[in-house]
């Protein structure tokens, strides 16, 4: 394994500049191919029949009328998929249970939410497939359902799984419930420590599930041959993971499935899991034809993962001087129809920005009749932060302390003990708070009905497995292949890090995302890990290439390789003793490729550690219309520790996008269910993500505390920006109106009702 040089402040030529991304032109000309853009000869179109009921036993499915329709080639149900063992595989936080996964792909004994897939049709055209769905007869026994998390935890709640015993409780409960798991993290003795506090505030909060809202619906094209080998074109955040899941559910060897990475039209965590891929593959296996599936927007809302809604209670105690002495958090998360909410993250991140000696967090993972929750940008952290950062704002008011000063006083730093175990190994949080304290807009006066709110956020950031291959072509140009899906410019950052390492111009380097047969395993593009982990793999591969090039230059000069150094894209003699040779360029060495040993290629694979967490602190100014409850965002200032920005424009873009999503989460986004447990706003008209005219321009403050464990100081930047906005806006609304909102979204009807009741009171 190559040793990583510490980030000495050398002058960087490429890193930190803003070149055009290598994959840019096809994306502005319409030529880039996304999940729905692939076709093959003889291709069939598939559509999925979905449950109209929130909770129902499936007594029987009769597809005979559908199969009789001309043009229908096959119908499949859950029975077509092999059974999977019931076991939680892998790490507790993200355990996979294939017994659950195969049932989420296609219902078996029961439909557990409206939109749950129950059958699928492959036909010669989308219209025929749609007509066939109407001819599939499903005999349902409708069961009582439960949507709300508190209702699902009630003793008399309808059970989704009659045999579910809560995990993580000693001794194990005897009665089944909808609580899949309970987890606790303890540091010191919180309960006792509250006694020492001068002020204690306890409040309860609720948040609504929100959808990732990527604009591209899930889509894929599958071809499974009679020889048992198959190909899949899929838009996902990780085609290696799509391959592993799909192969497992179809009982294939992983090596028999080749997955091509389609361009992905947004994911934000929601495309780290699979929905349509095994269905298309099974239909292809059954028909012998390629099969294409495109979800409708309604399917996306009804059947793919939003993040959890939650019910929370948070209690924090402070001294008069602002020191936090104790914190307690109870977080109840909707998992949706199958276990696996991000509640554990919520517990771990809730108080992570702060140095608190006594902390106790408890989390509950609760199933209910909604689509299974999927990851969404810093999963779990924004939800617990809404509660924690709101309570901190109340405490700051009670002790008359500036909310930023309160946070700075308690800021976690290197060496601070976290409640979930290890000590912080990186700074960066305090710097984001200080950046806002220094920000000119923080002191600007506010007008009538206006308020300013502050909040912070924490996210782990990821590392993990990545592989990269670097080729030097005979003309000296460079090609990089990685297996990390490019969601927002990572091809550019990979090319920039390679160009910087090799000492060649950015334009000489082409960066590609390779299929599962052409490059080593790469874990998903998620957890803000790609520029960090895959970046390290790319730099490692480039360093191997440099060693190879030095060796080839040594052959050309007929000297010892140790006498050759690599500087600014050229091989040079290490000293005069080596000899008087003119520097050899990459191009010159590449021209001697054959005689110096053949193809110039290097691979590197890493399981990267040493990643630094993401810290963000933000403030926003809002204006509330006291007669309608409408909230206008006047200003939003977002400070974030970015380590070092490889391509600053794309780092700014990540932060701007995260803030916009947070604003939607805070003000308007929610799942609205009717009394039958049916989603009544399954579309972009009534599921209101922000539009361009809703938002101001944001002020992004990039704080740079480089991570010494990355050759260029990178820290993950993709996620933490979505953690603070909900609390920041709630705190601003409180200052503007004197009313404290504790439930999301803070939509006009809800805010106006709160304002009027406050008036009445």
């Amino acid at each position, binding site marked *: 394994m190559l040793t990583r040089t510490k980030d000495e402040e050398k002058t960087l030529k490429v890193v930190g500049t803003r070149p055009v991304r290598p994959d840019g032109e096809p994306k502005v000309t319409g030529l880039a191919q996304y999940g729905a853009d692939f076709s093959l000869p003889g291709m069939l179109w598939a559509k999925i029949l979905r449950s109209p009921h929130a909770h129902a036993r499936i007594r029987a499915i009769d597809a005979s009328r559908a199969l009789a*329709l001309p043009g229908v080639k096959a119908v499949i149900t859950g029975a077509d998929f092999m059974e999977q063992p019931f076991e939680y595989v892998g790490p507790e936080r993200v355990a996979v249970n294939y017994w659950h996964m195969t049932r989420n792909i296609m219902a078996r004994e029961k439909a557990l939410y409206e939109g749950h897939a129950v059958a699928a049709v492959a036909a010669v055209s989308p*219209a*025929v497939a749609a*007509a066939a769905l109407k001819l599939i007869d499903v005999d349902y026994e409708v069961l009582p359902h439960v949507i709300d998390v508190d209702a699902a935890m009630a003793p008399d709640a309808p059970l989704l799984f009659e045999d579910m015993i809560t995990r993580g409780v000693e001794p194990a409960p005897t009665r089944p419930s909808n609580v899949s798991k309970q987890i606790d993290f303890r540091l010191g003795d919180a309960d006792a420590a509250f006694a020492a506090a001068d002020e204690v505030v306890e409040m309860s909060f609720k948040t609504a599930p929100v959808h990732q809202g990527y604009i591209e619906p899930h889509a894929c094209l599958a071809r499974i041959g009679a020889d048992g080998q198959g190909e899949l074109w899929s838009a996902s955040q990780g085609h290696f993971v799509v391959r592993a899941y799909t192969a497992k559910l179809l009982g294939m060897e992983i090596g028999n499935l080749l997955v091509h990475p389609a361009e992905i039209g947004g994911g934000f965590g929601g495309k780290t899991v699979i929905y349509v891929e095994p269905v298309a593959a099974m239909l292809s296996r059954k028909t012998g034809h390629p099969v294409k599936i495109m979800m409708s927007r309604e399917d996306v809302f009804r059947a793919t993962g939003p993040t959890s809604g939650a019910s929370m209670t948070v209690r924090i105690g402070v001294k008069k001087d602002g020191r936090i002495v104790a914190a307690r958090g109870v977080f109840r998360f909707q998992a949706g129809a199958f276990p696996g909410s991000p509640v554990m993250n919520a517990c771990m991140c809730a108080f992570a920005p702060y140095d608190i000696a006594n902390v106790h967090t408890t989390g509950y993972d609760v199933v209910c009749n909604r689509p299974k929750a999927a990851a969404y940008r810093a999963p779990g952290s924004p939800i617990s932060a809404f509660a924690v950062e709101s309570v901190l704002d109340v405490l700051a008011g009670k002790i008359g302390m500036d909310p930023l000063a309160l946070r700075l006083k308690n800021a976690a730093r290197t060496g601070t003990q976290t409640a979930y175990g290890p000590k912080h190994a990186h700074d960066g949080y305090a710097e984001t708070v200080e950046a806002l304290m220094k920000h000119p807009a923080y002191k600007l006066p506010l007008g009538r009905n206006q308020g300013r709110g502050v909040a912070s956020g924490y996210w782990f950031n990821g590392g993990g497995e990545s592989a990269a291959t670097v080729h030097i072509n005979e003309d000296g140009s460079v090609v990089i292949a990685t297996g990390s899906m490019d969601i927002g410019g990572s091809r550019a950052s990979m090319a920039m890090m390679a160009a910087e390492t090799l000492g060649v111009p950015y334009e000489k380097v082409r960066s590609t995302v390779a299929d599962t047969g052409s490059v080593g395993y790469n874990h998903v593009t998620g957890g803000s890990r790609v520029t960090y982990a895959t970046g390290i793999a790319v730099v490692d591969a480039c360093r191997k290439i440099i060693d190879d090039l030095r060796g080839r230059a040594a052959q050309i000069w007929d000297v010892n390789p140790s006498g050759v150094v690599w500087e600014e894209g050229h091989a040079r003699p290490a000293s005069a003793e080596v000899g008087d040779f003119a520097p050899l360029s990459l191009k010159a060495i590449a021209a001697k490729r054959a005689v110096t040993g053949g193809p110039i290629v290097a691979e590197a694979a890493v399981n990267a550690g040493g990643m630094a967490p993401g810290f963000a602190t933000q403030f926003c100014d809002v204006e509330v219309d006291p*007669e*309608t*409850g*409408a909230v206008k965002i006047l200003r939003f200032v977002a400070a974030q520790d970015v380590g070092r920005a490889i391509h600053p424009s794309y780092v700014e873009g990540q932060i701007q996008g995260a803030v916009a999503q947070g604003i939607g989460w805070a*003000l*308007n986004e929610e799942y*609205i269910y009717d009394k039958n447990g049916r989603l*009544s*706003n399954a579309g*972009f*008209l*009534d599921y*209101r993500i*922000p*539009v361009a*005219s*809703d938002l101001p321009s944001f002020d992004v403050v990039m704080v740079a505390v480089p991570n010494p464990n990355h050759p260029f100081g990178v820290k993950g930047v993709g996620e933490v920006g979505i953690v603070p906005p909900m609390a920041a806006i709630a705190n601003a609304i409180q200052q503007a109106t004197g009313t404290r909102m504790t439930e999301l979204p803070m*939509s*006009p*009807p809800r805010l*106006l*009702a709160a304002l*009027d009741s406050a008036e009445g009171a």
Partner: protein
Amino acid sequence: MSDIRFETPATAEAAVALLAGATGTAKLLAGGTDLLIQMRGGMVEPALLVSVKNIAEMNMIATHAGEFRIGASMSCMALIENADFVAAWPGVIDAVKLIGSVQVKGRASVGGNVCNASPAADSVPALIAAGARAVIAGPDGRRELAVEQLGIGPGRNALARGEIVTSFILPRRPARSGDAYLRFTPRTEMDIAVVGVGVNITLDERGVCCAARVGLGAVAERALLVPEAAAALVGTAVDDAALARLAGAASAACRPIDDKRGTKAFRIKVAGVLARRAAEIAKQRALEAS
């Protein structure tokens, strides 16, 4: 699975004949921005679509002695681009500008917005306030109907089988008069009115309101003409006291439901608020017009 017959008649009478004579579900296709969504969702499965885009009178705007005749299927964008109409009926334009995105307004028509009879349709309260009349062609010839009488319930209109709205007539704009439309939506654009209010007032030489019409949307099973609200303004200088009475009357006229877009209480209160604000804008426009 049978395909849909598609016709593009050149006259309103031919369209009426097709619709009246059809067996099975027959639908008029103007902008299509509601119909295509209903067809996609399987709520409507027509056997016949009659496109009226080739019918000249339904796709043009004409003016005669200060009276405007708007083709029922001309696109909202075409109407917004008509400088004379924008100058005469800024309140109607306020509403038409809110009928969806630029893309949707490139297809959607005022006729469709009215005839789909959504209680939340933006153009309807403004047209009601404007005193607009619909020109209807049918098997028994032509007739006119006040816009407030066209909608009778959610998705239900007063047209008989085979009848179509060919155009809307807006009366000559008196001196010292102005109109305005305001709606409430959670987003600034791309949204459906939770409450919509159209106000049209005329002032006399002394600045006293001598005529007023108020239309309310999204607060009942159909858009409403609210004479009580208008009465609160007539005879006043549209001062704070009158505006407060207007707000009270507007709120009192609401009979809303709770739904995914808003609560009863919210709609009732905001109807009054927006009526007051719209009247202030209409008054300002009336003063500028004099």
